[in-house]
């Protein structure tokens, strides 16, 4: 069907070079009207670079972009918008303080006698959004609506401004299930209108639900383009990773772990986390499972001293210790990789090298700087060991992809040679490949005798590496699962059972 039409947008041999790296190597891509085309690949595969070349944020170093058969070279986002290529990002790029109507028409407001015709603008906004099935009051500020509604408004603006090609860069990443359906219904409508839509996401289920075709990128090259109707998820994942996914079923590590490392008794803080007991032994991975807001992050932060516990005591190898601040915790060779990587983890403008040595240097004290040679040696060793992909150790960490940032954070804490490592959502927002590597790393660290506490919302992942799983609900520990009890089904039951009991 699609092949009989001519493509709206055609990329021919697009290349983009960065100092020391080839980001895109002769990439071809064809977009037909009325199709949803998924762009897939691991972090760092070149998806965002390709998008940036299309939207004019980057200048391509080679190749051609043909729009309706004519070559174009957008120089800026505005430029590409005018040509007909609109983009919507994961973070809604609209102004929360302006009204919905103002957001839709900013820069091209209907005017009357030199002034903005507000009533007309509101009516136009209402009609426009009604086409997308959205009934909202266009005179309300955008921030009074949910992220999903904001996302639809962003799509509406992009379509209005451009109208040929719509690029959706992880539009569903911060939405819940129902909200995703809302955005998908809008995508279906646009598809029917004949727009060509590029859809980027980490959720393969969503790719199969909405997309017609998918192009897989790896290391800056197109690995293949598939009609999704006759393709399985395994095929796609294989293309993305370039290797057969190893079977996840493996011998569970025996819970014959070593000596008790840390013991918490009646530990907690009023209004944050009910007091709990927790023992972690050397060479074991304790998983924390639970719904969002059940207390996973709170538990990690309490133990690390980021939240100050107001009751209970902590024993490290039988000795009472104080955990009043992260500084105390680092002193006892604890480490925490936080959930909110962007805000609590990386220091965006510092180099990768500086980010790696940050915790080690902090523990040593700022008046005893690490020797330069030692820093380089450490940084290089971890970059190699964790397979962090970067152009140079000197580049600011914010330029790295999510998976690589996460690995740098891991490196930062591993460099302090911790005896107890707390990971909060270590695989959030990173791609399948980096995901597998981080899981492998967790297992390697456990085998080396480290004690780990891992909080995660991905049950399969917890089942894969945990020697024990503690289930949390409403900021309480409700169940502990050991050995063969650890299955996804059991964890779900543990959360659900409690809910039933509560309902009675």
């Amino acid at each position, binding site marked *: 069907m699609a092949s009989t039409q001519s493509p709206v947008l055609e990329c021919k041999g697009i290349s983009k070079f960065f100092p020391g790296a080839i980001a895109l190597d002769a990439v071809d891509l064809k977009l037909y009207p009325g199709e949803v085309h998924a762009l897939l690949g691991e972090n760092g595969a070149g998806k965002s670079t390709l998008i940036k070349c299309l939207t004019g944020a980057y200048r391509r170093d080679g190749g051609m972009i043909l729009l309706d058969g004519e070559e174009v070279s957008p120089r800026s*986002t*505005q430029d590409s*918008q005018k040509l007909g290529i609109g983009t919507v990002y994961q973070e809604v*790029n*609209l*102004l*929360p*303080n*302006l009204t919905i109507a*103002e*957001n839709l028409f*900013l*820069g091209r*407001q209907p005017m009357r006698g*030199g*002034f*903005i015709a*507000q009533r007309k603008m509101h009516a136009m906004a209402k009609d426009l959004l*009604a086409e997308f*099935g*959205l*009934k*909202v009051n266009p*005179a*309300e*500020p955008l*921030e*009074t*609506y*949910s992220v*999903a*509604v904001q996302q639809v408004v962003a799509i509406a603006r992009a379509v209005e401004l451009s109208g040929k090609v719509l690029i959706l860069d992880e539009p569903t990443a911060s939405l819940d299930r*129902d*909200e995703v359906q*809302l955005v998908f*219904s809008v995508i279906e409508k646009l598809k029917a209108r004949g727009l060509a839509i590029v859809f980027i996401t980490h959720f393969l289920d969503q790719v199969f639900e909405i997309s017609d075709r998918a192009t897989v990128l790896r290391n800056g090259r197109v690995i293949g383009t598939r009609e999704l109707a006759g393709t399985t998820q395994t095929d796609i994942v294989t293309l993305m990773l370039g290797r057969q996914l190893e079977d996840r079923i493996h011998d569970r590590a025996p819970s014959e772990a070593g000596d008790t490392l840390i013991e918490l008794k009646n530990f907690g803080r009023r209004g944050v986390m009910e007091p709990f007991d927790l023992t972690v032994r050397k060479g074991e991975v304790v998983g924390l499972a639970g719904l969002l807001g059940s207390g996973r992050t709170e538990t990690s932060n309490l133990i690390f001293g980021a939240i100050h516990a107001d009751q209970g005591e902590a024993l490290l190898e039988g000795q009472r210790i104080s955990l009043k601040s992260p500084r105390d915790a680092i002193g006892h060779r604890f480490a925490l990789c936080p959930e909110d990587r962007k805000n609590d983890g990386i220091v965006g403008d510092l180099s990768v090298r500086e980010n790696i040595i940050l915790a080690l240097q902090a523990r040593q004290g700022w008046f005893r700087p690490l020797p330069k040679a030692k820093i380089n040696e450490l940084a290089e060793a971890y970059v190699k060991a964790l397979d962090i992909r970067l152009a140079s150790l000197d580049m600011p960490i914010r330029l790295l992809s999510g998976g690589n940032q996460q690995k740098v954070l891991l490196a930062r804490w591993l460099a302090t040679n911790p005896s107890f490592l707390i990971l909060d959502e270590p695989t959030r927002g990173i791609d399948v490949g980096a995901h597998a590597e981080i899981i492998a790393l967790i297992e390697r660290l456990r085998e080396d005798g480290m004690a780990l506490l891992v909080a995660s919302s991905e049950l399969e992942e917890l089942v894969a590496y945990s020697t024990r799983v503690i289930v949390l609900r409403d900021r309480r520990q409700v169940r502990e699962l050991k050995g063969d009890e650890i299955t996804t089904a059991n964890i779900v039951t543990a959360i659900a059972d409690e809910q039933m009991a509560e309902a009675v």
Partner: protein
Amino acid sequence: MIRSTHLPLLITIATFILAYTLCASQYPAMLSTRVVANLLTDNAFLGIAAVGMTFVILSGGIDLSVGSVIAFTGVFLAVIMRDTSIHPLAAFALVLAVTIAFGAAMGAMIHYLEMPPFIVTLAGMFLARGAAYVLSTDSVPIAHEFYDTLQSLYWKAPGGGRFRLTGIIMLLTFLTGIIVAHRTKFGQNVYAVGGGLPTARLMGVPLAQTTIGIYATSGGLAGLAGIVFSLYTSAGYSLATVGVELDAIAAVVIGGTLLTGGTGFVAGTFFGILIMGLIQTFIVFDGTLSSWWTKIVIGGLLFGFILLQKGLTWATTLRRKPATEFAAQS
């Protein structure tokens, strides 16, 4: 229709009405048109400067040069009229051109050099004050018959209140400010910049034009405030209006504009000015209180409004409307 964003404005207006009622219940004479007229006349220059400040703060910036620019304008007018035979109207045009250019230059630095407005306008503050000193360190009287004509223009309301030209100029400035803020593309762009600079850039807001426009507006209005101030005092003095920029900022914040930018109303600033003027008037009426109590009350009000803003921001995030208003899909 009342919207959550209107709430700070409504609270400001309610505060004003409450304060006026309290004052009037104690001193019924405060209801006279004389008091109202003086409220406008005495605060005219501050009000005009505060309109410019509102635009600056709406965009997320700050302009510390305002007080110095007002003083510079006064001295410039006095000196040029003493030393040359230039007509005051021509002098006004000249000084407005200078102050607009001065503001635009600061805006250009803020935009092109990506410097924080605080530091650029701090430099502007020293520059303008210094320039005023260079022109004259003494208070230079202005004696021109045209000035006398302007000063004698007023409308006498029943009750004896004299609504002078300067008060009218302030009201017109506010009116224009309100229309510009809400009904022009420039106004919308100011709000957009205040909502988030990177996003505004992505949405195609002409940043250079907007930023330069904002500071040129503030500079120009500070110039106009300086003209009004020189009409008010009939002199130019380089030591005058020290710290007026801070009063203007206070009026803007009491008027319900968020210091972080993006939310607020020019009309709110008007009531902010009135509230501040009212406190001063009350103290004059009382006669026993030290005039420094004005500062204390304004300080208290500022704290109150900052807390209020924090509370409102917090409440807005809590009350996000879910997607349930999405029309049913068939």
